[in-house]
């Protein structure tokens, strides 16, 4: 009864259906409008509209200049993708990058989180250093590493020669076999710190009692990690893998800055290929179709993430 006397608009906990509307007070959705309007406006116009626009353009043929020239072509663009060998290469590169970068980031981040959780002095300093690359623009990172890897000057080749391993000197980004693995390595360099912090936050949340109990039972440090810590990290590992995968699909800047997709499409990914199609080759419809494929992959992963979260919240 008590809740019924509180005006409906003020009660946050009770369900809307259960509460009678109090005369003279606006319904809640009306009160919510001014609070929601600005965020929803910009979200709808500048995020949702381009998102739907990408879908709409993907079934058209358009050079991008005159809106009157847009021609509806159904699924022709997607059929054309099937015959586009660069598209298939790009898709493969995206998946190779995703798998490589996710496995490396997760492994490095987890190993370091465990190592830094050993309460050794200066652990905090190292943590801070490892997270640092995350805040630096990928454009800066891309240019710096292009210079580091420059075959003529750079740091790597002269270093290899100086230590007598000159035969290992390579063309690096100019080498089609090495370019993509290098892009992966740089992405790991830039981003593993973030996931390391996610693991650390989980490690801190493990009650000390559990570790103490293991040690009382005669476990050593390794056994503690193997049988107590790691099993409790499972759900966090799964989440990091998902987050890092979604992040991996955002790949564009490093490739654009370092290789522009080259040499000879060796680092071409969906986003750079779509960018080329839309802005250089003026195939707006076709470029959009490539982006739709990218979006589809993203949403499959996002769907897994969202459904996983509901499971987690129930526990």
């Amino acid at each position, binding site marked *: 009864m008590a809740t019924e006397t509180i005006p409906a608009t003020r009660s946050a906990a009770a369900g809307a259906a259960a509460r009678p509307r109090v005369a003279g007070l606006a319904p809640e959705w009306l009160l919510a409008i001014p609070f929601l309007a600005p965020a929803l406006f910009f979200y709808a116009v500048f995020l949702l509209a381009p998102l739907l626009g990408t879908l709409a353009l993907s079934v058209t043929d358009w050079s991008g200049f005159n809106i009157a020239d847009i021609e509806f072509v159904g699924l022709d663009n997607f059929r054309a993708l099937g015959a586009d060998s660069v598209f298939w290469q790009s898709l493969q590169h995206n998946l190779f990058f995703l798998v490589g970068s996710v496995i490396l980031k997760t492994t490095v981040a987890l190993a370091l989180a465990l190592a830094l959780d050993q309460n050794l002095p200066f652990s905090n300093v190292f943590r801070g250093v490892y997270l640092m690359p995350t805040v630096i623009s990928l454009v800066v990172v891309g240019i710096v590493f292009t210079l580091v890897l420059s075959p003529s000057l750079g740091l790597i080749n*002269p270093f290899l020669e100086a230590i007598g391993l000159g035969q290992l000197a390579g063309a690096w980004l100019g080498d089609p076999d090495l370019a993509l693995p290098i892009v992966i390595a740089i992405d790991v360099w830039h981003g593993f710190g973030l996931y390391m912090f996610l693991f650390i936050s989980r490690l801190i949340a493990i009650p000390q009692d559990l570790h103490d109990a293991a040690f009382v039972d005669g476990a050593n440090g390794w056994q503690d990690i193997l049988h107590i810590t790691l099993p409790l990290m499972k759900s966090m590992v799964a989440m990091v893998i998902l987050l890092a995968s979604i992040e991996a699909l955002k790949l564009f800047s490093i490739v654009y800055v370092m290789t522009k997709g080259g040499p000879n499409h060796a680092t071409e990914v969906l986003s750079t290929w779509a960018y080329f199609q839309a802005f250089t080759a003026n195939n707006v419809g076709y470029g959009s179709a490539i982006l739709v494929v990218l979006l589809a992959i993203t949403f499959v992963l996002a769907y897994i993430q969202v459904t996983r979260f509901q499971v987690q919240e129930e526990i």
Partner: protein
Amino acid sequence: MQRSNTIKGLVLYPVFLLLAAAILYPLVWMIYSSFKDNPAIFANVFALPSSLYLGNYVTVFTEGAMGLYFRNSLLISVVSVAGLLVFSSLAAYAFATFRFRGSTPLFMILLLGLMVPPQALIISGFKLMSILNLLDTYWALIFTYFGWTSFGILVLRNFFQAVPRDVKDAARVDGAGHWQMFSQIMLPLARPSLSTIAIFYFMWVWNEFIYPLVYMQTPEKYTIPLGVLFFNGRYTIEWGLQMAALAVATVVPLLVYYVFQKQFIRGILAGALKG
């Protein structure tokens, strides 16, 4: 315990130090090389500068328009972050307070924004901006960034929901309406969350690259990342100049990181764990 710590240290510190070197050296190299002139760099890429040569920085700010890029980035970042804070806190209050039909689906649609890769929107976004006549204006970027409220709404909604009922009820007894409740009770309480979000958004907007690349055409309107790429494309063999431009581009995010590290880390955890 003492002995095992020594062993751990003997194994782990070399790993820690090696990794720290791998992370710091390219950046430190970039910074000290920016104080060498080009012949000095080409004579020995590894060597520390023999004297503090500032010519690169002079050129970067005179022939290059680094000061202008800096100003553009600052303007766009400050306006964008301010708008994002206002819009996301307002919306978060609504989601945390009002019960109305469709609020959960609406919230889910907003969460979609966290997943969408920005580069998936550039082609139709470019057309949208040209229809709205916003291409090559700061507003093209600012409005686009205003669309990324999802993260702030998520974090603040969780915070507002966690404010104890007692606090909210006490304000109601005092006759506070929703507007007062929001601006005088909730926002001041949310200050730590707001600073977390602000830092996170600032880093993101400052470093954002793909939208300026697509939407900005006049070099005078470039933001820092695009400006650096443009500048370095003009001086491909002038490494000293390139290093100076890169150092200028890196200084703000690094400063913000060192001053607001706690907030930044909280932002990472909030964005990932509650997303």
